[in-house]
């Protein structure tokens, strides 16, 4: 083979070997441990701080049982307490630590209830420009029991 071709193919071989070496450094060691992802990602997820307590915890005896029993029968039973009231794990462990204040803006309710073509037609949706005179939704609607205006 001509020397210049030898050089070219050596260069190509170096590039390919370089790729393999770089790959071996960059791909995490735990990749493929359980599947086509980084195995350590599971441990990372396990180590996340627990922030949500769950609606059932809110409804325990001596806590918010009365409002819980209203909510659990309402149309909003699929919207968990912490969706509006914020993450409450700390509050459950120590009642003195209050969760974040409720987000009761029109835009927050509108995330589900502003009119959108992508939603089923029978789902309650409003046009924010014509409905409610720009008042907070909770001014008329009871978020714990919708249609109990």
């Amino acid at each position: 083979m001509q020397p210049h071709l030898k050089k070219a193919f050596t260069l190509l071989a170096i590039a390919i070997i370089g790729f393999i070496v770089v790959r071996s450094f960059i791909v995490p060691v735990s990749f493929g441990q359980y599947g086509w992802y980084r195995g350590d990602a599971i441990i990372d997820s396990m180590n996340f701080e627990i922030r949500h307590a769950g609606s059932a915890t809110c409804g325990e005896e001596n806590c918010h049982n009365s409002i819980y029993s209203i909510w659990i029968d309402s149309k909003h039973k699929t919207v968990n307490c912490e969706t509006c009231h914020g993450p409450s794990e700390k509050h459950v462990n120590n009642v003195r630590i209050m969760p974040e204040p409720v987000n009761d803006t029109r835009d927050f309710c509108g995330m589900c209830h502003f009119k959108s073509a992508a939603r089923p037609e029978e789902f309650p949706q409003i046009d924010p420009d014509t409905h409610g005179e720009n008042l907070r939704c909770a001014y008329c609607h009871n978020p714990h029991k919708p249609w109990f205006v």
Partner: protein
Amino acid sequence: MVENLIWGYIYPNEAEIQWSILIVLYPYITGLVAGAFIASSLYHVFGKKEIRPVARFALLTALAFLLVATMPLLTHLGHPERGIEIMFTPHVTSAMSGFGYIYSFYLIIVVLEIWLSFREDIVNKALSSHGWKELLYSVLALFSFDISEKALHDDEKLAKRLAIIGIPSAAFLHGYVGFIFGGIKANPWWSTPLMPIIFLMSAIVSGIALLILLYIVSTVFRKQKIDHNCLQSLAHYLWIFLILDVVLELLEIVSMKYESLEEIDIINRLLSEKIATTFYGVQLTLGIFIPFVLLLLVGIIKNRETLKLIMISISSIFVVIGVFAMRWNVVIGGQEISKSLSGTMTYVPVFYSIEGVLPAIIILIIPFIILIVLTKILPPWKDMDKGVE
């Protein structure tokens, strides 16, 4: 607002069209690469001497477009630094992960092919220039300055072999792009085994048309005479591939209509309302029918070189636009019908946005800048200018 763009019943996640004009650009640019390469291999592999003036220029064109082929995807997805991970951890069930390897393999072939066909010039320049130019060309020559007859003969032999491997890889590169769409079984407008071949044919057509245009423009800029023999030969090949292209495209529509499966209603609606102009008007009439007639006339008419030149130029411009419309009709058209088969959406392009028309224009301009730089470093015209002199 969004409601006006929707007809019938669609699924909630379909209201917004996700694959924008950038995804239209991706198969378009990849197609131009494959087309330009196949045009150059008409000379390098099949020994069509009349193509010689553009053979090396076609390789540079292929490289210039190949270098930006991934850019629309990376812009669309964001986080371009993660793009390489598709090659670090490729999954066998992912059609997309194969692309990285096919693309890289093809890039190596094109670069080697260019290096071999320009090596004599590179060595001559390295030996005759001084300073940083000498260094640049010496590096490009890999500090081997052997241009004896035997060395050049070996180069030519290897270049021919590479071009033989290059043709199937170019076909793979673009056929794969068609496969990505053709393999989506949920979408009746895309799901057909013909898709890779249709993409490939239109790629060759667009590549040759672009090459014709670039050849004419560059010849005018260099104030040289156009080699009409070469031009008409390219036009001849354009015409042949145009026929193959239109046959396949129509075959797909005709078999869809003849079979009349459950999706035919929505396909009819797509063709008659959503993409009627871009399909019948731009893709078929402007992009195929008019060039077909013009190129047929070019083949029939004797002498009258200027008239033929104009006809070939117009055909090429129309073909390049028509193939873009074809990509548009596939990518956007396929997303404008709902998977429910009983509703349609409308894609409204935006201008100033990362997904908009502006980045698409910028991405489409970059390969031409790369091509200018490449032709400055490696002038592909040596043989031709000699011939004219």
